[in-house]
């Protein structure tokens, strides 16, 4: 369980980085927090010949405000999200979600960009991006493009990122006072990847809900929206009866994979438990 030899490159600017990445393409892997990549190298499940350390590039570790959105640099660590008052104020869903990721040691190094670029289907951050309608900012030697979360996650560890691109930031619409949100996941042990999880964000006008997004993780090959359940909530006030119907709809929509320890039926069942519990919480808050 020792990594094969690899070369290590450390660009100092974004320009230098994207130029070099363009040259090396598939042989290089970007090294951010290393919490996944180094393990994969050691397991010999990844065998990048060049590790491309972006940690020294200035500007990628900041969180800043624009009038309507927060821009979170891809190198912002989970611990940085946890400690940020901007995040707490303008993206409270993230503040709530981030404590569910791993343990403090991993949160001290792991980055939001690393999580999004990796696209682990059971990870918290991708589902939050989906719930919050975030945009990913991707850079290559020719410039920048923005991809909405809805289009970014393609499948198991698969995103629209190209090998010559760097994810530099995510843009998250600021939470308005009318925002309602909820987050929870089920894991056997604190800090484990979720067996199933759900991030909810939407708008509440009085007790009526609008544009609610139910973003599940751990139940498919990528984070998924329960669209038919979402549609049932549009313009509605939460009642026990509605919550029950939404739960049924969500269960009907989810098609989780089977794995040796966790049967698909269990994850699907949890999908129902989570949506009922979180909508129940929202209902109490909106009363």
């Amino acid at each position, binding site marked *: *369980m020792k*990594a*094969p030899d690899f070369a290590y490159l450390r660009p100092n600017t974004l320009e230098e980085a994207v130029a070099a990445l363009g040259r090396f393409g598939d042989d290089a892997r970007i090294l951010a927090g290393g919490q996944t990549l180094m393990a994969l190298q050691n397991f010999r499940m990844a065998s990048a010949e060049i590790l491309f350390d972006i940690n020294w590039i200035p500007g990628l570790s900041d969180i800043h405000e624009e009038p309507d959105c927060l821009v979170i640099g891809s190198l912002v660590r989970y611990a940085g999200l946890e400690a940020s008052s901007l995040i707490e104020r303008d993206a409270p869903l993230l503040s709530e979600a981030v404590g569910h990721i791993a343990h403090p040691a991993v949160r001290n190094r792991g980055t939001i960009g690393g999580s999004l670029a990796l696209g682990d289907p059971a990870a918290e951050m991708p589902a939050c991006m989906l719930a919050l309608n975030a945009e990913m900012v991707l850079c290559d030697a020719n410039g920048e493009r923005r991809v909405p979360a809805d289009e970014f996650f393609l499948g198991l560890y698969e995103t629209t990122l190209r090998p010559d691109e760097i994810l530099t930031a995510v843009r998250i619409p600021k939470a308005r006072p009318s925002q309602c949100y909820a987050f929870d996941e089920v894991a056997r042990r604190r800090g484990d990847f979720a067996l199933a999880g759900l991030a909810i964000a939407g708008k509440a006008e009085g007790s009526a809900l609008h544009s609610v997004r139910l973003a599940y993780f751990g139940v498919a090959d990528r984070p998924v929206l329960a669209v038919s359940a979402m549609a049932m909530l549009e313009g509605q006030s939460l009642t026990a009866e509605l919550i029950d119907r939404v739960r049924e709809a969500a269960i009907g929509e989810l098609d989780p994979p089977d794995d040796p320890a966790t*049967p698909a039926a269990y994850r699907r069942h949890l999908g129902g438990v989570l949506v009922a519990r979180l909508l129940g919480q929202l209902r109490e808050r909106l009363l």
Partner: protein
Amino acid sequence: MNFQAPIGSSLPRDRAKRLLAGRGQYVDDIQLPRMLHLAFVRSPYPHARVKSIETIDAVAMPGVARVVKGADLVGVVSSWRGTHNLFPGLKAPEQHVLAGDTARWQGEAVAAVAARSRAEAEDAAEQIVVDWEELPFVGDAEVALENGATFVHDSLGSNQAFAAEVKQGNTELAFQDAHLVIERRFRFNRHTGVSLESRGLIADYDPSADRLTVYQSHQTPHQQQDLYARLLDIPEQNVRVICPDVGGAFGLKHHLYPDELAACAISKLLERPVKYIADRFESFLSDIHCRDHTVTARMAFTQEGDIVGMQVDDLFHAGAYSQYPRSSIAEGNQIIRLCGIPYRHEHYRAAVRMAYLNKSLLGHIRSVGHPIACAVTEQLVDLGAKQLSLDPVAMRRRAYLRDEDFPTTSPGGIALEHLSFHGCLDRALERIDVDAFRREQAQLREQGIYRGIGFATFVDLTSIGPEYYGEGGQHISAQETCLLRLEASGGIRCYTGATDQGQGIDSGIQQVVAGVIGVPVQDVKVNSGDSELCPVGGGSWGSRGAALAGEAALRAGQELRRNILNIAGVLLQKVPELLDIRDGAVVDATSGAKQLALAEVAQIGHFRPYMVPDNTPSDLTVTGRYASRDRMFLPANGLHVAILDVDTDTGLIVFQRYLVVHDCGRLLNPLLVEEQIRGGVVQGIGGALYEEFIYDDDGYLCNGTLADYLVPMAAEMPDIEVEHLETPTATSELGAKGAGEAGTTGAMGAVLNAVNDALTPFDVTLSEVPLTPPRILRALGKI
């Protein structure tokens, strides 16, 4: 004798400070000049023929010193068979360090690379091309014993390794006449020990002296010394096994592993030091596994709740080979002897069958077989109580062996000296108000919270006597010797045959020596884990250190004390009986007035011995030896009580309380016993809730990493309360019994009973561990 402090004091472990300061030295911290590193090529198949192994490309890789196949080690190292002479019916096939033409489990090593670094060794191992021919495999004990099953070992002509039966009275008749018979089929799934520090060693063979020095993360240096001398044909006095700091062992480090012996053989072959450290992938594939039993058990009751008898059928397997040198029968053998043991009953029949199959080996992990016997017994008792509408506490109170029943021999054939079942239950009830709990439970159920309480009474067979392995034909010491040396400064060096793998036995022995002699604890330095310097002993396993090595230390301490007082008597012109040693000084026994410092006595003994008459015993280097007689075990006992909530939506379990009342005789250090119990409970909860190896239909292990093989973690663990009773054994002067496994022994039963109690309103009974959320929700009919 007067057991004065520090015996019985809660002192922190002697090693803790050094380990916390980062000054520990584990095998992997040791670097030797010219050292090579090993990586193995292991079978990816559960059963396969090795048609050829092509090594040309590997040999040419950078840093490679040698690529080794089984044939290269013929004449360097011998093979072995995991037999046990007490059980002549055990069929044990021959095993080699590297598989020859057939690999019999996924993970069995077939070739090794010795290279400049582990990374280079792995690079080269990837270039070795093995031409495998997959063979039909046997992955299940039931299937293994069916007619027409594929043989794991053609040479044995059967997959049945062992069968035995224990009988007392007439269960057939007794069950016919019984008021109630409860029967359950139990599944205990397979798990392992998961030490933080993985297995590892450095073998350093010096051809100029025909000398082998092995630094190894291991529990039994003297056992290893014997094995290496015999299997590698090196004079035993030239073999030295040093166990430096050991980061957890749990029984998985008291076996001989083929890869570790291969490292020694390769060092002998290449005449260079060779390091092998198992990585976590290899650990899961090659460490000893445990449990994996299917038990069908029946218990018969009278209407009043007395237990009439018990019938037990246990089916398990050894994996692909019988473990060496201890053999693999112990789990099953313990189960058939231990079921029902806390209870009065007369009719007993228990049978075990052990199969071979194509999985890695099954051996001895903390509290071998005990958790299974305990869980089976205690669930049947709970189910009986429920059927008879009795309270589980009242039921136990009625059916337990009573104080006046001791000494007795259990129906399973275990001699019991005096066990404190009633005392433990009384103490538990002082801590937990069961009536109040039942009221709370009823209220919570109305709110949809399902809380349960589970009791598990256990007997722990500690401190195996010499008769077990002595008669078995294994060279495993069950006697212990302690060597003490008074230094001229008055400090004492102590050498013990017990070993410290984190449990702190060094401190227990230090306290015995200090207490017996009468010196401050810090004046005694304990050295252990070195087969050359330490007197021959058995190391640490099977809850033996305090009881056996502790008694040897007591005896050595008494002799050193006598000799010190003899010398002091001469110097002071007083009879030694009028003198005492207190706080490191010789004092007048009645007035307590200080007479001499220990250093003064020691200096006479070492430098001016002519001052003491020849016929006065005055050795300042002494040994004390203890070998128990006429007893196989030293049983200890206790009671676990678990209180927990089952979330019937998610199947998750949250502990509310956990209590262990434990009786291990005289306590050398209550703090360390408590920590042993807590660690043991956590490991037991691992087996009850989390730890399980999962194999797919094709016989492959699906979860061989710490991401998917779940070990218990701190956040989910309860605060474990520990209460002590002290019923010293009369078989030794110290009176200590073992404590290291007691936490694991009862946890599975207590958790299982608590979960079933919580789920009472749903009328379901779970009898399979671990109790994973899907299993719980399936039982509830929710998925």
